[in-house]
């Protein structure tokens, strides 16, 4: 990038682009330096800023409730399945009893996913955040040795990272999301045109995979090698199971 001086005429022609945030960094810096020696450009910039402030003071018309309702009616309504709600304390106790009875991993089959609150809803919301973002991942790499270190300092644990390209689930990269108020590692995989997000956090208990469904998304949850895993996608449930099995096999091999 050039570090040469910008003349006043050039600077004047770039006032709008500068204020609109459309100048490349080097040019924006040259523009700012030029301001010092170009009073007319400073005046134009002040004018443009004042106009912007005027726009920001304009009334913002919110959609009337009737319109919001009729738009909502265009969509198929989500089926609300009545779910058995258990409080976290009771569940922890129940899990302890099950483990004590020596049927530890079987318990996962019959218990809802652990932790309080509506975890499934949070996982689905986290999945949608990943797929709606301009970039579904904050660190883009299929290399586990790039993705894993990226998490250090951002969350308080080191997640287990595997690229499953050979199994048909290439790793796109990683991101961070909040589940139950806690920062959680999310690994993003691709399957054909679908995105799969894997949420993972430390969990000493071991539990076998169980599948849950919400709003058309499938969520496969289990715990293994000291970590809990929640794989979520709009994939067919069978394909999600395939993913869980592939990851489970890798984890087992590294145990």
């Amino acid at each position, binding site marked *: 990038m050039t570090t040469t001086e910008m003349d006043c005429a050039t600077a004047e022609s770039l006032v*709008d*682009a500068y204020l*609109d*945030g*459309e100048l490349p960094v080097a040019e924006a810096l040259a523009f700012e330096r030029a301001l010092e020696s170009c009073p007319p450009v400073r*005046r134009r910039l*002040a*004018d*443009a800023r*004042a*106009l*912007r*402030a*005027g*726009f*920001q*003071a*304009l*009334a*913002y*018309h*919110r*959609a*009337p409730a*009737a*319109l*919001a309702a*009729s*738009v*909502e009616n*265009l*969509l*198929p309504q*989500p*089926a609300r399945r009545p779910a058995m709600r258990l409080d976290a304390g009771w569940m922890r106790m129940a899990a302890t009893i099950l483990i004590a009875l020596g049927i530890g991993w079987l318990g996962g089959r019959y218990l809802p996913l652990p932790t309080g609150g509506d975890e499934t809803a949070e996982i*689905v*919301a986290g999945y*949608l955040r990943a*797929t*709606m973002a*301009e970039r579904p991942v904050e660190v883009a790499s299929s290399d586990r040795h790039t993705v894993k270190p990226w998490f250090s300092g951002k969350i308080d644990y080191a997640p287990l990272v595997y690229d499953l390209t050979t199994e048909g689930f290439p790793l796109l990269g990683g991101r961070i999301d909040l589940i139950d108020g806690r920062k959680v590692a999310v690994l993003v995989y691709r399957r054909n*045109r*679908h995105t799969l997000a894997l949420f993972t956090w430390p969990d000493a208990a071991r539990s076998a995979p169980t599948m849950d469904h919400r*709003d*058309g*998304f499938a969520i496969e949850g289990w715990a293994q090698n000291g970590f809990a895993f929640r794989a979520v996608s*709009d994939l*067919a449930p069978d394909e999600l199971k395939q993913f869980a099995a592939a990851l489970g096999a890798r984890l087992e091999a590294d145990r």
Partner: protein
Amino acid sequence: MGMIDPALAARFRALVLPHLDAAYNHARRLTRDPTEAQDLVQESYLRAWRYFASFHGEAAKPWLFRIVRNTFVSMRDKRGEATAPLELADVDMDVGLAELHGMSQAAPSPERVLMEADTRRLLEESLDALALPLREILLLREVEELSYKEIATILDIAIGTVMSRLARAREALAAELRRRMKES
């Protein structure tokens, strides 16, 4: 696509529904009529939902705004109202530009007067007085704060055209403000 309907609806809720207020505000300022704005947004969302299977994860807001715009044009066409101004060739707007440039040197800056009280109405009126394509591009940039690239997508024009039309729109607005201030 293989995505089942409820998943599609959940995605639509998460990606497109949050822009309802923005779409309505934009429609209000585009049509200048609350009833027409409601019809426009309702019809736009209907189309958006219908086309949603072909949405491939690009930014949702420009995608929706492009539908709003196309719906606006087709609704006005249906009512036999000319939307010619929306398609106004940009060269047409060159007329009088030189004159505007001359004026902008003279009078005290109208933009800065906006900082004073009771000038919001002045801006509203000046904005409403602008030709539709100029008003439209100013709203997309100043109110919706969309990037040049996003505006280019919505209006289906080149980025260079976005820049020149935006510059013309700003000049025209300043001239309109100046004229109204002189009157009052």
